[in-house]
């Protein structure tokens, strides 16, 4: 099947896909499954479900996730663009539809529910926006006459508008950051970058002024003794400390059982109690490897679109992981953000599978590129970089 002699699509995929990156992603999913065993039974029991409720569902979600990851990585650049445009259009429509038809959970309308399944469109918007944004930026960089940047900014506005109305500050920030990353990568001047960073700080300050729940979180983070609700993060830190370097062993951690969201946002600290900080360091290393590998792969692409899209997706992944880990370690104020491929949640897992599948597809070694330079793709990239 993988023979080089016959040029089947699968063989071609196998010989061109970034295998270390693929392996790292699979390993991350495996870690997620193992951590689900540690973290979710206590939550399930608390919710009155069978202890293995989340573990089983997590395992069931992993199957389509792997499918989506592999299938997406088969796409060519052109197919990726088409898929992203279609996906973006659908998810923006759904995103706006949540405002009208969404299910209200804890004061926010973020979820659409059909056929018994709930879906969070904002999760899908992010990767598709990254790809389309990258394409628009790449076009605008190639052809000055295209108003592509303005189009991208408009798209961003359309998404951010819906997200703010939901309201969902975390996703808003991620979409804004995606757009900023695109701007940064496309080469705007440092002066503009600092100006935008200043605006970003201003926006945060604005959010602090206008969103009381956001302000409360910041206050509580700065002054944890001030009577704010620090239950979750207290329990998370207790779990991390309880585990020590080597962990308490499977099922032995008591602190992790008290974390309310141990299966979702706080799976990292819950697992720390059982498997220890060394395991967590390995996990952080694995995520770091995925991010850097994807970025290096993106850097090597000769196509501007591929380079921008893959690196933006990698940056999105990195931001999501980074925010989740920082929240778990109480480095930043708590912000609901799932840990890709590890936290429980079907929408998030499949959306991330789309994103990382696109990264895999965009960083595949391309024979056509080899033909133009007469060198392997990475060599031609090196030549171009020199």
């Amino acid at each position, binding site marked *: 099947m993988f023979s080089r002699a016959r040029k089947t699509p699968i063989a071609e995929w196998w010989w061109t896909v970034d295998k270390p990156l693929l392996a790292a992603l699979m390993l991350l999913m495996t870690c997620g499954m193992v951590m689900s065993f540690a973290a979710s039974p206590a939550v399930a029991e608390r919710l009155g479900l069978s202890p293995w409720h989340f573990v089983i569902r997590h395992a069931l979600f992993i199957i389509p996730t792997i499918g989506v990851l592999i299938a997406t990585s088969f796409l060519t650049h052109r197919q990726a663009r088409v898929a992203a445009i279609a996906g973006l259009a659908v998810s923006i429509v759904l995103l706006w539809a949540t405002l009208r038809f969404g299910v209200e959970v804890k004061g926010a309308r973020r979820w659409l529910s059909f056929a018994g399944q709930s879906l969070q469109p904002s999760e899908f918007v992010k990767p598709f926006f990254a790809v389309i944004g990258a394409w628009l930026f790449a076009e605008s960089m190639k052809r000055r006459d295209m108003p592509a940047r303005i189009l991208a900014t408009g798209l961003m506005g359309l998404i951010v508008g819906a997200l703010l109305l939901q309201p969902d500050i975390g996703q808003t920030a991620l979409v804004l950051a995606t757009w900023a990353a695109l701007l940064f990568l496309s080469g705007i001047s440092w002066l503009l970058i600092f100006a935008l960073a200043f605006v970003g700080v201003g926006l945060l300050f604005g959010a602090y002024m206008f969103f009381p729940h956001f302000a409360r979180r910041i206050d509580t983070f700065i002054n944890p003794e001030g009577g704010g609700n620090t239950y979750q993060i207290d329990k998370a830190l207790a779990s991390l400390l309880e585990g020590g370097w080597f962990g308490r062993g499977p099922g032995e951690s008591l602190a992790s059982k008290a974390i309310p969201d141990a299966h979702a946002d706080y799976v990292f600290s819950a697992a720390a109690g059982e498997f220890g900080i060394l395991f967590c360091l390995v996990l952080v290393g694995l*995520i770091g490897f995925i991010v850097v590998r994807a970025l290096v792969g993106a850097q090597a692409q000769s196509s501007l679109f591929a*380079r921008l899209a893959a690196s933006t997706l990698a940056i999105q992944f990195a931001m999501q992981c980074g925010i989740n880990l920082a929240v778990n370690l109480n480095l930043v104020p708590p912000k609901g953000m799932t840990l890709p491929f590890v936290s429980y949640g079907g929408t998030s897992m499949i959306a991330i599978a789309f994103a990382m599948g696109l990264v895999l597809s965009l960083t595949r070694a391309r024979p056509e590129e080899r033909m133009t330079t007469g060198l392997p793709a990475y060599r031609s990239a090196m030549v*171009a970089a020199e």
Partner: protein
Amino acid sequence: MSLASEAAVPTIALEGSRKSRSQLTRARIRWVIFGLILVFGVIAGRLVQLGSVVVETSIEGQTRDAITATRPPILDRNGLEMAVDIRVPSLFAEPRRIIDVEEAVTALRTVLPELDADWLRRRLTGDRGFVWVKRELTPAVADRIFQLGIPGLDFVTESKRFYPGGREASHILGAVNIDNQGIAGIEKNMDDRDVALLQELGLARDRALAPVSLSIDARVQHVMYSELLDTFTRYKAIAAAGVMVDVRTGEVLAMVSLPDFDPNNPASAFELYDGKKDQRFNRITSGIYELGSTFKTVTFAGAIDSGRVRLTDNFDARFGIRFGRFTIDDFHGKHRVLSTSEVYKYSSNIGTIRIMQAMGKDEFRAFLTKLGMDKPMQIELPERRNPVVPEKFSEIVAATASFGHGLSVSPLHMAKAMAAFVNDGMMVPVTLYKRDEAAARPLYEPVISPQTSAQIRYLMRLNAIDGSGSRMDREARGYRTGGKTGTAEKVVDGRYSSSKTLAVFASAFPLDDPQYAMVILVDEPQKETPQSGTTAGWNAGEVTGRIVKRVAPMLGIAPDFSEMLDQALVPASMARAPAPENRLGVPSL
């Protein structure tokens, strides 16, 4: 990459050069990689920092693990539960997180009105991270407090020790403190042995531990407990104690000491008894006594085993023996020449001194060492007291020691020696943990010969039929019990008092096939009726008989009234020359 070169980039970009654009994005990606490595580096650094934190796992000085730790259940030899763990919630507060102390105090007192408002207010005010509010609540109360929804209050599930038998085996089981650590008895012993280690390894949390089987028989324990309790009303005793051991395995089947305490409420161990302090200790292991005439059995065993005294020997007991200005005489003495068995039967002090002297005082002292009388008792209880036995015996010390005065040992020392005397001279260390005979045999240590053992059994049984143990035998008819009384005058204000005595009965049964040895103490017994006496046969002896009567059937000993069994106990030397008044030698009653 420097900022200077970057500054030139926008102008190049305006020229629309694809080449420099691709160079530029690559450079920017490099910046991104650099930035992200920094972010993940910070995260890893934070993890390392958290890993290096030495966790304060203690709760007000106690380790959290110890509090939530489980203890193994304790079972008696037949698998009955003597101590079990139950899980109970305990309420603690984090004062620094309590928003409104007044509100919390008011709300808490609706559920726990017994808490003092001022105390609670002081407790909940401040910046501490952990204070106990009320430990060991019932689940229902814990639930009501939970429903109050006061922030800063939380529960820890603690293990609480429960003793279904209550006071019955208090001195054996001991007690645990509120942190579930053994503070007395077997509980403390278990901690010292291995539970502490298990808990340290974190293996003893939240899971069932293999139960610990004791040698105690809860039925026998109950009988002994109820019979000894009875002495308080029957004889107006101020204290009573008893111990029964299996002579073949060294297992303790029952051990009672009264007054006692309630292990479910360990503080009761320090309560006053009859207005006096420190009365609730374990008299069997941590009480040492001059055991009086019961000690004569030891003297006889040593003397007969030395070969210098035979049962048929006669000793002059006509006159008291003078030591300087002291004269030692017999209590209700016969004042005639007595045979060895008569000396035992009539409990003659004079005869016993002569027997000891025939053996030699230094040999007698050496025999006590051989029996371990001068060493602390080896038993799995932390409550032990060293015996007081003079290092070297002078003539007079040896003389008084021969009938149990001038040296103090624990009743358990006596029980262990009695067990060896009837068990063919094989002494076995006593234990509170279950042990079978196969495991006990390698521990056997011969202290007297089997022939001597047979003669001691004969003497003990003889004493029960004809001597001071007859009141006991009347109670336990058919169970072939034998033993020796001892009525030791207690030292009051430095002098022996004839009104305050310690009555002791050291026995073994059934003597045709010795299985159990028992020592019973009754402290300061009074006459039961005006007609009865105060010597040990009237109280400690009768108690022994009543216990044997009740426990022997449980232990599988069938009553047998056949006199053949008693006659079989008579040693060959005696059978040839039976003393005329010796019923054992003469078939007729």
